[in-house]
């Protein structure tokens, strides 16, 4: 790992950082695919991939080769420009979301003062990509998937933002590195102890925002065949897939920075603690996916509007009172 702060020009720093992020995103995609399949396999009492390489470790590579080699089909009657722009719009902001993340004490690409909001803003672009994909596919299932996605994302963005406000109130900063530093290395110094409710609401909202089961309604395969990406083949689908895993990592990274002390940990703080926390949370997401049935659409929205929003507002009120008094 290079100490990024030693590189003089900020522009060069950003370029190197971008390359690093791209490499991380690609590698993370492979690791996540492997993890997901292994987790699913072990939860379902089967070994998971086992043929390609030792313990199937090369399986994600084989998957990637398959996806790249597949023919890219544009459905008849679809809008070709928007149809192929959608996966790119889905994937590109995911890269931007990695820029302000402090991976380690000196391992941060852009130390921006509004890092938290930046991530939230760019991750909200995913909705747009999903809508475009659903609309331009000229497929009714895709359209229904897009409609569900809009309602779901708009509903869950509110409690997601509201659940983060208490953190901002407590730390007085939007800079992710600063927020990390206000917490100590030991678990009882982490913000999750002060804000358990906010953590739960935030983590559930991450499930909904990344369309993970049990909130995977936009692509509910037993209802909408495959929702918004029904028509996509090859790398078009691959990019959506990669974007989904990237957003999952971003969500888990935010959760670990804001609530679990980021790169700080007992004994030796550093990027290893950060990755450990992120992947632990990712495993929880996979565990949930392979365990629960899918909720219904109105139940999902009821959960957001009737429970999470009032609860997070209450949480803000209490936090504000405690902070000021």
């Amino acid at each position, binding site marked *: 790992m290079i100490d990024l702060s030693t590189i003089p020009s900020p522009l060069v720093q950003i370029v190197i950082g971008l390359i690093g992020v791209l490499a991380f995103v690609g590698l993370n995609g492979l690791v996540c695919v492997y993890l997901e399949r292994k987790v699913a396999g072990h939860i379902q009492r089967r070994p998971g991939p086992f043929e390609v390489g030792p313990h199937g470790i090369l399986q994600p590579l084989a998957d990637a080769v398959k996806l790249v080699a597949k023919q890219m089909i544009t459905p008849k009657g679809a809008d070709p420009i928007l149809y192929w722009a959608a996966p790119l719009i889905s994937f590109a902001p995911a890269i931007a979301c990695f820029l302000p993340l402090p991976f380690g004490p000196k391992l941060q690409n852009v130390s921006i003062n509004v890092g938290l909001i930046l991530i939230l803003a760019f991750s909200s672009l995913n909705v747009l990509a999903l809508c475009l994909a659903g609309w331009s596919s000229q497929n009714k299932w895709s359209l229904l998937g897009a409609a569900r996605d809009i309602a779901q994302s708009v509903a869950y963005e509110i409690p997601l933002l509201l659940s983060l406000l208490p953190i901002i109130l407590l730390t007085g900063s939007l800079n992710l590195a600063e927020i990390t530093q206000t917490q100590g290395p030991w678990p009882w110094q982490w913000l999750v102890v002060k804000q358990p409710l906010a953590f739960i609401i935030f983590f559930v909202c991450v499930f909904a925002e990344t369309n993970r089961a*049990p909130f995977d309604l936009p692509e509910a395969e037993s*209802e909408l065949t495959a929702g918004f990406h029904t028509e996509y083949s090859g790398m078009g689908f691959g990019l959506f897939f990669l974007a989904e895993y990237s957003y999952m990592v971003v969500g888990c990274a935010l959760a670990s920075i804001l609530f679990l002390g980021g790169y700080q940990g007992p004994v030796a703080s550093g990027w290893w603690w950060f990755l450990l926390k992120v992947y632990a949370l990712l495993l929880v997401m996979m565990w949930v996916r392979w365990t629960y049935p*899918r909720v219904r659409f109105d139940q999902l929205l009821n959960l957001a509007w009737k429970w999470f929003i009032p609860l997070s507002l209450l949480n803000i009120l209490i936090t504000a009172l405690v902070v000021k008094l």
Partner: protein
Amino acid sequence: MFDLELGLDLSGDFYTRHFQPTPSEDTLILNMGPQHPSTHGVLRVILEIDGEYILRAEPVLGYIHRMQEKMGEVKRYEQYLPNMGRVDYLHALAWNWAYVGAVERLMGLEVPKRAEYIRVITCELNRINSHLLWWGAYLLDLGAFTPIMYAFQDREIVMDILQRVSGSRLTYCYYRFGGVSQDIDDIFIEKTKEFCAYLKPRLKMYKDLVTDNIILRKRVEDIGIIEEETLRKYGATGPVLRGSGIKYDVRRKEPYSVYSELDFEIPTASSKDALGRYLVRMQEIEESLKIIEQALEKIPPGPHISPQAPRRPKPPRGEVYFAVEGARGEIGVNLVSDGSAYPYRVKLRSPSFSNLSMFPEIAKGTLLADAVSILGSLDLVIPEIDR
């Protein structure tokens, strides 16, 4: 293709054009199937939806139609027997039994006691298999991936047991006119007893893990309520009927074979919803285990096939109806013989056919996700509907 004057969409095939609704701005015609993950095979449902609310649902059948009834007329009685395993591939032995039973009734053929018990054991094992698969597939419809893997693990044991006696794993052709094709042995009995002991704690686990899960409960409670009147008018049978609290089971109401000698309950649920049908099926697995255990105790020695059993039956003239309780409901075979080696007419009464015909009525006004849940709770096997 869009006819502006009539406001009708002229694209699509015969059925989409035929089911074209009152033209409206807000509704959308949606083709669910024939290749759709939750129609389990090749069922197609044309839906007219407003948002995600279903205004009208119309199943379109025939994608796996094989004209089984015509085949029955052009094949000899014993030649037609293997077809029965293909009508309902999940509860093949019940169809075996229905056809064999009809021919036996037509000929007045006595079946040895041992054969009857073997039939009961194997048929109930097959029923457990069918219900387990339904359980997994239904949860798959509701978005839970894992249970189907557990169900398949259990099914594997049953299939091994049945393979031992019948030679096949899915589309069995095990029963013969006047008995069964092969006697069971000690290993079969031992393995079946082991399976019964193995499945009971598993069922307990499934209850804790899946049935009591709040998300599942919310997805099935008060979904797809079917009233008694609807059930009667459409002729629904099986767990769909019992899930609405009606205690009708062919094994009890019209006892065939040795079921009258066995002690078992007919589980019913009064909630009338998808949960009721779910619970009825889960309890039926337990009852089937009870039946198997009793039958294994009571099974008498003797021949496994009647010595008078003809290899090529030539039943006398006449007509019979033989009903059997399948995993999905009442299976009926209506045979008409003209005294030759070929049946004059074979009519197969399939329970899924009647159960599915209710779907347009119960799906009306529900959400798309609930329609999937309802469709799953009816436990359809499409080859049985199309025949």
